């Protein structure tokens, strides 16, 4: 039992079967799911449409009841009202009252957490700043665009500074800029000891933020593990250098051919569209171009950076935190290298011999997704399609 308390979410034999009016079993949405989600991790639920991601999340929130098996959140039943204080939830679409404006919405939900007025108002201002809706805070949510609704939905999920953040399709409807901020936010929260569970179709997002992922298909786990492990292609090696002229390439090819290998592809690396887009928008914002939509400041609400739950006072402390903990610029450059398998060391040595200044490529953290340029999405796609015979960890 003690061990259970360490899980943020744990399921045992969790099964959800939908029945029709006559109680005939119709669909098995989730079958015998055993998942353990630990504190301080970003856990991704992946899967094609109808694979049981949302159902699992709804059972964790007590919005649906399991047919069989159990699910515990912070060691309690999901229907336990007490644990809701520690949870933030962003549903797959924004389900907020259209007749309230952004400020009223946040105030309403803040009240439900019995937050004192001062703290509530402070947090509302910070959150509105963070999601960039301060300028439109007095417009009714019914008039918001889908993306803006998403942003206020995110703010609503964070009003209680939750220990567990459950996000259903968090980046759908968000522009790349907001997506970037969202990813930064997730990392900051996790660094502060929070736990994030998200389900997504946006594989790039999952890849960027998740520590561990679980791929569901037909309600069963098809694969589960650290993202890095799942994505590394052990059969290929990628080398990135300054631009090479044809003779050098030929020389390289010769070296490789001596060792019984060949170059499979030669191409100039391309920027990821995401980083190019972000740069363009950043330039526009620097030039003060007006927008009627969300205008994010790029920051993260200060209370979400607080190391603990102390009351928010001392503007100076916040300023310090703000400057100190400014999110590090993300690794947008496409120059990452996958881990290099040892047996080919000699081949590399002979290649780099004439240029001893070249440092060995950094080895990425195992639990952090390695941003691989040409990372073969086929791996994930195959998993999602569930068609190949990859090891079925869920049934183990």
């Amino acid at each position, binding site marked *: 039992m003690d061990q259970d308390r360490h899980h943020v979410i744990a399921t045992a034999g969790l099964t959800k079967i*939908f029945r029709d009016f006559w109680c005939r079993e119709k669909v098995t949405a989730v079958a015998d799911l055993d998942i353990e989600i630990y504190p301080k991790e970003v856990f991704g639920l992946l899967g094609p449409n109808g694979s049981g991601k949302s159902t699992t999340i709804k059972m964790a929130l007590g919005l649906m009841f399991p047919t069989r098996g159990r699910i515990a959140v912070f060691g309690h039943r999901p229907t*336990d009202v007490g644990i809701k204080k520690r949870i933030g939830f962003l549903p797959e679409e924004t389900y907020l009252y259209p007749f309230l404006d952004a400020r009223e919405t946040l105030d309403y939900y803040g009240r439900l957490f019995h937050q004192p007025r001062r703290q509530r108002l402070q947090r509302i201002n910070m959150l509105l700043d963070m999601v960039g809706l301060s300028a439109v805070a007095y417009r009714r949510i019914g008039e918001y665009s889908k993306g803006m609704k998403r942003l206020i939905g995110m703010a609503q999920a964070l009003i209680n500074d939750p220990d567990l953040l459950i996000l259903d399709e968090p980046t759908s409807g968000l522009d790349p800029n907001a997506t970037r901020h969202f990813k930064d936010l997730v990392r900051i929260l996790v660094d502060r000891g929070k736990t994030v569970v998200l389900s997504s179709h946006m594989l790039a997002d999952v890849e960027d933020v998740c520590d561990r992922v679980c791929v569901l298909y037909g309600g069963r786990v098809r694969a589960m593990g650290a993202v890095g492990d799942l994505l590394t292609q052990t059969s290929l090696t990628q080398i990135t250098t300054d631009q090479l002229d044809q003779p050098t390439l030929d020389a390289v090819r010769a070296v490789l051919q001596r060792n019984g290998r060949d170059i499979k592809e030669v191409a100039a690396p391309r920027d990821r569209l995401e980083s190019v887009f972000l740069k363009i928008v950043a330039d526009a914002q620097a030039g003060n171009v007006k927008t009627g939509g969300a205008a994010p400041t790029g920051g993260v609400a200060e209370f979400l950076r607080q190391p603990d739950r102390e009351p928010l006072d001392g503007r100076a402390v916040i300023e310090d935190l703000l400057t100190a903990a400014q999110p590090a610029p993300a690794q947008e450059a496409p120059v990452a290298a996958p881990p290099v398998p040892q047996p080919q060391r000699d081949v590399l040595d002979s290649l780099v011999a004439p240029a001893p200044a070249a440092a060995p490529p950094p080895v990425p953290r195992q639990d952090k997704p390695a941003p691989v340029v040409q990372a073969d999405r086929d791996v994930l796609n195959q998993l999602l399609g569930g068609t190949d015979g990859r090891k079925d960890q869920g049934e183990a």
Partner: protein
Amino acid sequence: MESPSLQYALPPATAASRRSLAFFIAVAVLLVTGALDVLASVGLGDAAGLPPRTVQTLRGLAHVLEIIAAAGALAAAVASFTVRTVAMGTLRQAMRMKMTALLAGMLVLSVAGVFHIQGDGTAGGRIYTFLSYSTSLVAFVTSLMTLFLGATIMSQDMDRKLIFTLATKPVARWEYLVGRWLGLVLLNVLLIAATGLSIWGLAQYLRQQARSGSYADRKAVETEVFVARQWVAADPLAAAEAADDAIKAMKKNRPDVYEREIAAYLSPGSAEHARDRDEAEQMQRKKTIAVELDRMQRVAPGTLTQVSFSGIDIAASRSQVPARVRFVMPLKSTRQGAEKGKLVRLTIAPAVVGRLRLGAPLKVNDAAGEMYRAGNDFVDVLFDEEDAALPAVAALGEGKDVTLTLVATLQLRYQIQKIVNDNVPEDQVFGQWVLINPKTSVADGMRRPRQLPMYSTQTLTVSAAVVSDEGKVTAQFINASRKPLVISHDTLQMLYPVGSFEGNFARGMAMIVVRAVFVAAMALMLGSFLSFPVAALAGMAGFIVAQLMPFLASATNMTYYSHDAFAVVGHYVLALMSMVLPNLPAISPGDFLAEGKVISWDFFTQVAVSTGAFRSLLLVCLGCLIFRQRELARVQV
């Protein structure tokens, strides 16, 4: 693999969980006592063989418990910040919905429209119509609004999945439902208070206008509308006994006629067919009772009929104050309908003025007149044309010191009808009412036969001295016409003022709130598991059934059809239904206010407890149970 090793931790005891517990304990107490109370009202006590007195005591005890439990539940709910937040959110939501604006507009328009209805042409009639219609309309429109708002809000939360966001916050399901409920109640309180104030203002405006009208109008307005009167119906006519006597006599004297009548019921071709002799005898008895009832309400020309009233709880207070005659003025108005006779202005102490009621009988020395008008320090006493000629009145000279006797007043309401098919000219109906104290033989009333209108309810004001110490009065009607008349027994009432119109009006408005409290609970309960159209329809059905309660009760009355299986089942189904649904017409304040009848604290408390607390919380509780068991997310695979 069916071995979930996962163990749940017990939820910790927090202030919130203690509040929930307190709420549910209070509700449980309320529901148990309330259910017993309702069952007692449909005859559980008799079935259990308890003496009526014990049942009475137990029900009194149950009422006290119910009040305490309802107050406890309300306190526990309001103590929860979450409930308050949801309630205020609901109020804000409702205020921003077009439906509320529409219905509020309807309310304003209907009150304004009713204000322009003239009624029967008299000032009293107009105020009666206005108060009766406007309060009924407010009750109806707010009920309708609450029904639709409740169903809309609940089903929107479900259909648009707004509940996902709310249910993942630390909000217990009961807090959500009770919060919604209190929010709707709050909206109703605001709306009803606002419309109540405008109705009040308009009624006062009409009252002011009536002051410049005729004395009869003023009197009707002041003594029959702007008062709060207790009322007592006439003692029932002993028609059943008379019928039994008649049947006995018939069996003895004319057995052949009796048997022929019974045989008529038993013959298969008859309109009212009886299955056996027993039923035929029942039917024959029923018919005889009707005949006797008819006979007993008839008054032949030149004869008198006597009706008794009992249970009149009036203090026959009587006080004498010194006065001085200021002047005597003969009234000789030529205006149609204006009063004639003699007006005597008496100077009195200002403190006495407040105790005078318009139209109340007053005695100046030995002369009996009525209160016509009062100023800051004077009162005008009216002696009608024939009284004015009496020596006691003639003795009242200017500057004379006299004794003014104030007595409590009593009013008799009656309606004169004619025998069907009988041809009585309207202007030839003459009669005289005399009320007599059965103990002391003190009498008051009409001093001579008068021409009386037919088919309209009339009011006669007399001194309360006619009420005996036991609260009994005997009323005699002398038919001075040439044709037989019918005194409709159902319309006979004794009324006496017991309170102010202001307090009565406030209780009337509070009663509309109680209705809304119930309707809100019903709408939320239905909305907790039905989609909007279904919930709205079911709510409308419930509303209509509650509106038809008195009709249904008489339709399933067991007295006459006791061996009809359908009627027996119907009776118990209705008893069960009456546990959930209130008798809405009985708790409509419209007629109370329009007829100046008191909504006593006793009655109001009973309505508030049985409908506002018991029935409403029963539905809310049912809603909570359904809601707790319900998966808020729908099938989405």
